[in-house]
C-alpha cells in the first residue's frame, strides 16, 4: 500500500510538472504581454524596459528554470498589472468560486444519485423514463445555454431572481443551478446504470434468498457495489470544484477564479494565469488521489492487488 501510494504521489508530481511546463510555454509563445500591457503604440524603449523588467528578454529556457526555482521556494510571482502577489490574488478569489461550486456539488450528490438509484429500482416505470429524459436534457444542454435559459425564465420572464452580481446569497441561486443541472443529469444516469448492473448480480439474489428485506438488500448489498463507478465520477466533479465555473462565472459576473482566469489571460498576466493553472492542476491531482484511496476502501479486491 505504501509503495502504491508513493507511485501515485510520483505520478501526481509529474502531472503537475507537465501542466506547469505546458502552461509556461504556451503562454509565452502565444503573445507578448508588453503589447497588451503597454498598448500597441508604446515606444520601443518602454517596451524593452518592460521586457527587461519581467525577464522576457531572456531565452525561454532561462525564464523557465528561473520560474521553476521560484515556485519550488514557494514564490509564485506577482501580477504584471499591480505587482500584487499572484498566489494572494488567486486565493482571494477561491471562496467566491466555492460559494457556487460547493452548493452545486451538494445538489449533484443529493439529487443525482438518489434519482438514479430510484430510477434503477423502478426500471421501465414512468418515473424511470422521466429521470432518463431529464438527465439527458440536463447534461446535453451546455452550461452557457443553460445559464442564459435560466436567466431568461427566472430573471426576464418571471423577474424573481437576479441575473448577475454577488451582493446576496440570492444572487448565487442561478449560477449554482446552472452548475448543478448538468452534473445532476450525469450522476443520475451513471448511478442508474451502475445500480441496474449490480441488481442483476448473483449476490443480490443471494441476499434476497436468505430472507433479507428488499430495502436492506438495496442498502447493504447493492449500493456498496454500485458505489465504485459513481465514486469515479464524483472524483472528477470534486477535481473541478475550482476550475469548473469559468463559463458560469462569466455569464453571471461572479468574481471567482474563473473570471480572474479570463481577465488574466486576456491581459497576458503571466504569473497569475500560471498560478491559477497550478492551483487547478493541484485540486485535480488531489481529488484523483482521494478517488484512488476510496477505491481501495470500497473494493477489497482492488486493495488486494495493490499489496
Amino acid at each position, binding site marked *: 500500500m505504501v509503495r502504491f501510494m508513493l507511485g501515485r504521489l510520483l505520478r501526481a508530481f509529474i502531472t503537475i510538472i507537465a501542466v506547469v511546463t505546458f502552461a509556461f510555454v504556451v503562454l509565452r509563445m502565444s503573445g507578448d504581454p508588453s503589447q497588451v500591457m503597454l498598448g500597441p503604440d508604446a515606444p520601443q524603449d518602454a517596451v524593452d524596459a518592460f521586457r527587461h523588467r519581467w525577464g522576457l528578454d531572456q531565452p525561454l529556457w532561462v525564464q523557465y528554470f528561473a520560474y521553476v526555482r521560484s515556485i519550488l521556494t514557494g514564490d509564485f510571482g506577482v501580477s504584471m498589472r499591480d505587482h500584487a502577489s499572484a498566489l494572494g490574488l488567486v486565493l482571494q478569489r477561491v471562496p467566491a468560486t466555492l460559494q457556487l461550486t460547493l452548493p452545486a456539488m451538494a445538489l449533484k450528490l443529493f439529487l443525482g444519485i438518489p434519482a438514479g438509484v430510484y430510477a434503477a429500482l423502478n426500471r421501465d416505470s414512468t418515473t424511470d423514463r422521466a429521470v432518463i429524459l431529464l438527465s439527458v436534457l440536463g447534461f446535453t444542454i451546455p452550461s452557457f445555454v443553460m445559464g442564459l435559459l435560466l436567466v431568461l425564465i427566472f430573471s426576464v420572464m418571471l423577474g424573481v431572481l437576479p441575473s448577475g452580481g454577488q451582493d446576496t446569497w440570492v444572487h448565487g441561486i442561478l449560477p449554482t443551478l446552472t452548475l448543478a443541472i448538468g452534473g445532476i443529469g450525469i450522476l443520475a444516469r451513471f448511478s442508474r446504470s451502475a445500480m441496474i448492473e449490480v441488481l442483476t448480480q448473483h*449476490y443480490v439474489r443471494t441476499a*434476497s*434468498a*436468505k430472507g433479507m428485506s*428488499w430495502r436492506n438488500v438495496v442498502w*447493504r448489498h447493492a449500493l*456498496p*457495489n454500485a458505489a465504485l463507478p459513481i465514486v469515479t465520477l464524483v472524483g472528477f466533479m470534486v477535481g473541478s470544484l475550482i476550475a469548473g465555473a469559468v463559463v458560469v462565472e462569466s455569464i453571471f459576473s461572479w468574481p471567482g477564479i474563473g473570471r480572474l482566469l479570463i481577465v488574466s489571460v486576456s491581459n497576458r498576466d503571466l504569473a497569475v494565469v500560471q498560478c491559477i493553472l497550478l492551483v487547478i492542476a493541484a485540486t485535480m491531482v488531489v481529488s484523483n488521489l482521494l478517488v484512488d484511496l476510496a477505491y481501495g476502501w470500497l473494493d477489497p*479486491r482492488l486493495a488486494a492487488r495493490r499489496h
Partner: protein
Amino acid sequence: MSTLGPSFIELSNLRVGFDGIEVLHDITLTIAKGEAVGFVGESGCGKSVTWLAALGLLPGKAQVTGSVRLDGEELRGASHRLLERVRGGRIAIIFQDPSSSLNPVLRVGRQITEAVRLHRSLTVHDAKAEAVRLMDMVGIPDARRRFDLYPHEFSGGQCQRLMIAMALAGQPDYLIADEPTTALDATIQAQILDLLNELRAETGMATIFISHDLGAVAQVCDRVCVMYAGRIVEEGRTADLFDHPRHPYTRGLFDAIPRLNAPRRRLLPIPGMVPSAKDMPSGCAFSPRCPNAVAACLEAPPQLGGLTAGRRLACYQPMPSLSGLGLTETAKLPRYATP
C-alpha cells in the same frame, strides 16, 4: 416416498411465463421433510425456475400462477414478511456459481452473521460465534481467523462451503441446491456432495438437488424428477428410475453417458434440439426427437400420471420396462468413485 411427514412443500399447477410465453407448465409435486429429491434435465428445462418461482425470487416481470404451499400455507402472493421468514429460515438455497453468489465487498463472516441474525434472535456476539461454528461445520479450516476475509480470498469450493454455511444459518427444513457443483472441478464436486449428504444426515434437512449430472443425483437423492421443456416427464425412486427409465427422454439421457464397466460402444446422443419456448409443439414437447412418437404424441401433451407405486410418467409410448439395466451404478461410476 409418498407418505407425507409433518412438514412438506406442495407445488400445484405451478406455471411461469416470461413476456407471455409459458416456460414452466403445470408443475405438481410434493416434497416431505427429510427427503432428498433430485431435479434433472438439460439447461433451460425449468428445473431452477421451478424453485426460484417457489421462493418468489424470479424477476418482477415473470408471471407465476398456481400454488406453492409450505405446511399448507400459501407462499405465492404471500406478504413480504412471510416470504422473508420462509427464505433462509424454512427453505434455504445455494447456487451454481458460489464465487459470484457471495457479495465481493463484504467480509464473509459478516455475510453469514447477517443470515444468522435474520432468523434467530441472537446477540451480535453470539451470532458471530454461531457463524464461526457454521464455517467450522462446513469444513472451512481456521474459521475464526478467516472470518474477516473477503470472498475473493477463498477458492470456488470454499465459497460453496461458505454458501452452505450461510444457508444453514437459519436452520432451514429444506435446502435447495441449484447445481451446486457445476462450477467446481471434479474432486471438489465430490467433497461438496459428501458435505451435503453429511449435513442431511446430521440435521434431517430435506434436500432439493437440481443438477444435470445424473451421477451427482444418484449420489445424493432418494427420488428423482426428470424435467424436459418446462414439464416433469418422469418421476420415481432413484434406484427404480435409474434401473427402469420409462420415458424415452430419460432413457436417452442414460444412453448418452459413457460406461466404464462395459465394453466400448458408441455414445448415443439424443437427436435434435430442445424446442424453444416460443414454438413448442402442440403435443408432447419431446415428440420431434422421440424414437417412439406416434400420432397421439403430436396432438396433446401427455399428462403426468401414476405408473406404479411412487412412480409417475408423462408418455403415451413409454420404453418397455426392462429389468436390470444396472444404470444406478453406471451413472455413479464415471466421476464419483468416492469410497
